[in-house]
Structure formats: C-alpha cells, structure tokens
C-alpha cells in the first residue's frame, strides 16, 4: 500500500507539449508511471511521446479513464487548469507550476470545494508525488527513492531530495513522498497528508520537512498529538532566516511573531515528534530511532 499514487494510477499531463511538460512526462514514463495522455488546447488529435493529446481534460478523461492530472501549465493559466481538471472528474490533481497568484489559488480551492468535491489538490509550486517503484508524478529524480516504510511530506523541493537521499542511503525506503509546495495557500496541508499516512498500512514512520512562515507546522503538531500514533520525525528549515524577509518561497516569511522556527519546533516537540536540528542528520536520526517491522 501507499498513499495517493500506485501502479494503477492513470495520469494525464496538462501542458503536455510544453518544454517542462514534455521533459518531465518523459521522465515519468521512463520511471514506469502510466502517463496515458496529455492536454494542450489546440493540439487535440495529435500524439506526443506516443501518447494521445486532447483539447480538454474532459475529453482526455473520457477517452483514457485518467484519474490523476499532472499540471505544468504556466502560472497565469495554471489555476484555470486546476479547476478544469477538477470539473472533469480527476480525483488527484498535482500542480507543479510555481508563481501562481495567491488569489487565483484561493479561487481555485473554492471552486474545487463547490464543483469538484472528489478532487484532492497537491501543490502548487511543488515537486509532486512519488510512490517508489510504482508511480512517479512529478519532477523529482526517481533513482534516489527506494520502496519502504517511511512516509515523507515536505513544503520544499530539493530539500526533500536531500532527505530522501539520506534515508535511502541508510536503507530506509519510502512508502510515498509528497511535496505539498511552498505557497501560502497549498491545495493540501501537512495535516491532510499526515492523516493519510497514519491510515496507510505500509507507512510505519513519517518524516516531515517544514519551513518558517504560516502555521501549517503548528497545525500538524496539534493533529499529531490528538490523532496519530506513528513516529514522526521533523526538520524545519529557516532557523537562521531573519524576520520580515521572504526566503524564496512565497510562503517562507516570518511576519510578526507568527511562523517562527522556534514556535514550530516547540509545538512539534511538545506534541511528541522527534526534532532533527541538523539537516545532515535526517537519515541517521531516523535510522537510530526507528526499526522497521517489514524490512
């Protein structure tokens, strides 16, 4: 078992024929993911990477029975693509695009709630989701992953790869790795994904990579304390970041007294999570404190 994706996931790519869409769809196919087609308005009826191209998501879903959409559409039109995927009945929407206006996401989220309650959105501004050895829907380097019992959820991209790499090197494989993205309004929160991991039989322990800004980590701490039993390891980036300055991600900013590194660490520690202070020790700390049932 795993969460969100498995070998049966049928994926379409929105923004399929663009340069990012083409490149990453190709890599996902190489990994073994079932990319069953793509959508580029105006290119319907052609083929790309040996897959059919459709004008609309609705048509793509009808013809391919896709249940996942991976979005590479440029920022100005990305929120529209999210809503189109939801309306067409897609159940998992993964939006890689970065730089989407915050209010576009607020509107898209509201739209999904009202018009596409079946849809779960991951991202935007995220590396995507991977269930090792089964399905990769994102831009992460597939080969660093290894199948196993650790669930990983993160707000960052390359920081996630760093963590995965350390875990795999220690022989600790992953059930599913989820990048929820670094934007102020993410489609799914830490809490949403922690909930899925807690209920997933394959996942035995969870690594969470947070960063300064917002209160998603504090919310995760409260949820962990109230509802979870599996061991949770956390690293929060941005301890050395000065307040008031945005650190790359639109969401990574300490404003006033909210969203500081200290408040997040404190909340998670008192909720019972294992806090990892040194980024280089994610793999070794998990290896030292956690023994998998199924090796």
């Amino acid at each position, binding site marked *: 078992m795993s969460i969100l994706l498995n070998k049966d996931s049928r994926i379409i790519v929105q923004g399929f024929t663009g340069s990012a869409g083409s490149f990453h769809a190709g890599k996902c196919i190489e990994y073994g993911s079932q990319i069953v087609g793509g959508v580029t308005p105006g290119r319907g009826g052609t083929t790309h990477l040996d897959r059919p191209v459709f004008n609309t998501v609705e048509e793509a879903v009808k013809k391919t029975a896709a249940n996942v959409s991976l979005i590479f559409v440029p920022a100005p039109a990305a929120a529209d693509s999210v809503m189109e995927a939801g309306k067409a009945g897609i159940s998992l929407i993964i939006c890689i695009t970065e730089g989407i206006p915050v209010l576009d996401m607020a509107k898209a989220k509201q739209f999904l709630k009202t018009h596409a309650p079946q849809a779960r959105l991951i991202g935007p501004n995220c590396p995507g989701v991977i269930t090792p050895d089964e399905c990769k829907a994102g831009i992460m380097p597939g080969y660093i992953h290894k199948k196993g019992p650790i669930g990983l959820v993160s707000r960052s991209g390359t920081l996630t790869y760093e963590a995965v790499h350390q875990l795999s090197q220690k022989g600790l494989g992953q059930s599913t790795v989820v990048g929820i993205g*670094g934007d102020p309004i993410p489609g799914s929160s830490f809490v949403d994904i922690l909930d899925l991991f807690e209920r997933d039989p394959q996942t035995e322990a969870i690594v969470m990579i947070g960063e300064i800004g917002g209160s998603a980590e504090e919310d995760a701490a409260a949820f962990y304390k109230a509802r979870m039993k599996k061991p949770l390891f956390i690293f929060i980036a941005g301890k050395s970041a000065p307040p008031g300055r945005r650190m790359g991600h639109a969401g990574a900013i300490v404003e006033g007294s909210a969203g500081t590194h200290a408040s997040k660490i404190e909340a998670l520690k008192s909720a019972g999570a294992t806090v990892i202070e040194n980024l280089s020790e994610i793999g070794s700390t998990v290896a030292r404190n956690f023994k998998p049932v199924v090796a």
Partner: protein
Amino acid sequence: MKLLEYEGKEIFRSLKVPLPEFGGVIDKPAQINSILKRLKKGPWVLKAQVLAGGRGKAGGVKLAKTPAEARAFAKAMIGMKMATHQTHGQTLKVEQVLVEQGVKIEKEFYFSVAIDRKIGSPVVIASSQGGVEIETLAAEHPEQIIKKPLDPVFGLLPFAARALAFELGVPAGHIASFSQVATTLVKLFIDKDMSLLEVNPLVLTPKGFVALDAKIVTDDNALFRHTDFSKRVDIEASPAEREAKKHDISYVGLDGNIGCMVNGAGLAMGTMDTIALAGGSPANFLDVGGAANQERVERAFKIILKDPKVKTILVNIFGGIVRCDMIAEGILAVLKKMKLQVPLVVRLEGTNSEKGREILDRSGTRLITASSLWEAAQKSVAATGGKI
C-alpha cells in the same frame, strides 16, 4: 512588494475612498512652504514615507499646529534615520515626507484585508480599537478583533459590510459610510491581487469615515497582470537583490560572511541553517533555481561577490533535474573567467554527482570539495577562519 503610504493613498483616492486633505509629498524641507500656502488651515500632519510600521513612536509622524512647527518638523524629518520595532535593528533613511491636513477624529477603528493561510482565502480583520498595532491588540485584547473570511470571488457583499459595521458599534448614521469604504477596499484587494491592505487607523470624523493610513503589500506573482505595479521599483530590495531578480535568481543579502549558492529555496534555507549550526554565518540566501545552467551559475557568483563581506563561497547543489557534471563544468568555466579571491567549497550530490566531483578534482583548480552538507559547512567555516 510593499507600497509607500502615499502610493497606497493615491490608489485609494482614485477609488474615492475618503482621505485627509492632501498637501503634497516633499523630499526637500523648503518644499513645505508652497504646501502651507495652499493648505492654509492647520493643523498639518507630516508623515515619514518609509516601509515600516511603528513610525509614530520613532518620530516619523508629527502634528504641526503652526506653520513654523511644520517647517521645523519637515527639516528634522527629511534625511532622518529611523529605526522602528519593524525594522529589525536596521535603520531606514527618510527620503520623502507626506504632508496632509489634520482631521477631527471621533473614533479610531482598525481595518485590514489579508490572506488567511489556514482557511485558504482572504479575510477582513477589523476592530473598534484602532490606532494600536494589531499584534499588540491581538495579544492584549483578542476579543476586540473581528475576523470575517471572504469569498475570493464575491468579496465583501454589502449586507456583510453592514453586519460588520453593526458588530463594530459604528453609529447608525455612519453605517453607509463604513460599508462604502469597506466594500471598496476589499474589491481593491481582490482586483489588484494584494496580499495585505491595512488601514490603521480608519477614523470616524463628523463627516464620515476617513482612511488615515494605507499599508499595501502586493502579490509579486500577480505582477504580470498589474503593469502599474510591475513598473515600480521595489525600493525595499537592495540593488543586488533587484539584479538577481532580473535573472530569475532568488537572493536575499544577510549579515554573515559565507556566501551560498544553492538550488531550491528550502535547501538554500537549510544550507544557511547548517552553516550557522557549524559555527559560521551565512552572507546570503541564494536559490539559483531548478534550471541552473552555466550562465546562471556565473550570474550567481557575480551577485554573491558583489558583497564585500563574503570571505568564502559554499556551493551546495542537489542534482535532480540539474546534472552535477554540468554544474561542475559551469563552475570551472566561471573560475576561468573570474579570478576568485576567496576559498570555494563545493558539495555536489544527486544526479551525476560522482562525475561532477571527478571533473572538479581533475581540473587541478584550487577548490575544496565535500561529500556531505555537514562537511561542506564545517569546511566553509574553517576556510573563513583561514584554517584551510
């Protein structure tokens, strides 16, 4: 991007949000004379135009009762270096001063529109206790703060604005005035893709509500559809930060002396933290982006080296899409072009990392390689102290 108060008020004025009588924006003390000639009736309010809250306590807001006082305040304020609780130990030089006519205040309210990350939508935050910092109010009188989630499409509907006015205790005769201002400001927030719009205080005068202040932060991701903002220079960013932005490099200058070049924002922050943990101090945050190529690596080096504090450079690349061998070639090409005067520590991991390390080792170039981030951070700290 933050707007100055007078820039925000210009937008308010275009939407007919009531404001104090405008005198002018001056950058030389003598310019106040023509304002005093035109705005004959005092008192006059002089406000330092800097991008930080807490100006009043720092001497950046003055009420002048006589023309002589106004002239004296203008002279003292222009060129003044200001530190408020929001400038985090830095000082800001006052370049411009906004002059307005004073208004008769009956009651001060607080009004803002912001993004509530938790619920994923904009919210209106209002209080009948205006004029104080909202953080202070939240800490001392949280019950005095009213928070109303907004529909991002509909905004604040008139009935909801009226309900808010009643809840705030706005006198019956001024409900319409409040609703007009509140709905206009919410519409502005949504139409112009703002991430914060704060009016503190929003004051009740005998003639109705008047916006005494305007604090606006725009959403940089939406600048593509707001050309009026995108042409504006981000005065808060340093020249190096603006230069970086032009090339899609995310850079923030810091106080330390170890320059960092990293791919990915989270890993860049994590690298800074690791340097600090190893006893060093990062000179910057720098994310070269997912599509790091030789040109970007070169740009990044140039930007880092513009900071004279930099004593060592640490390159930390986790190759995913980016191949480490390509980064290694990029670094060598840059070193050939530029004479690097400071030690360079390189850590390459991920796609083709071994090949990348080999390329660096074989080149015979003087640089320090590391196989883990911790090792890289420690070596950077040692090199900065002249120990390598």
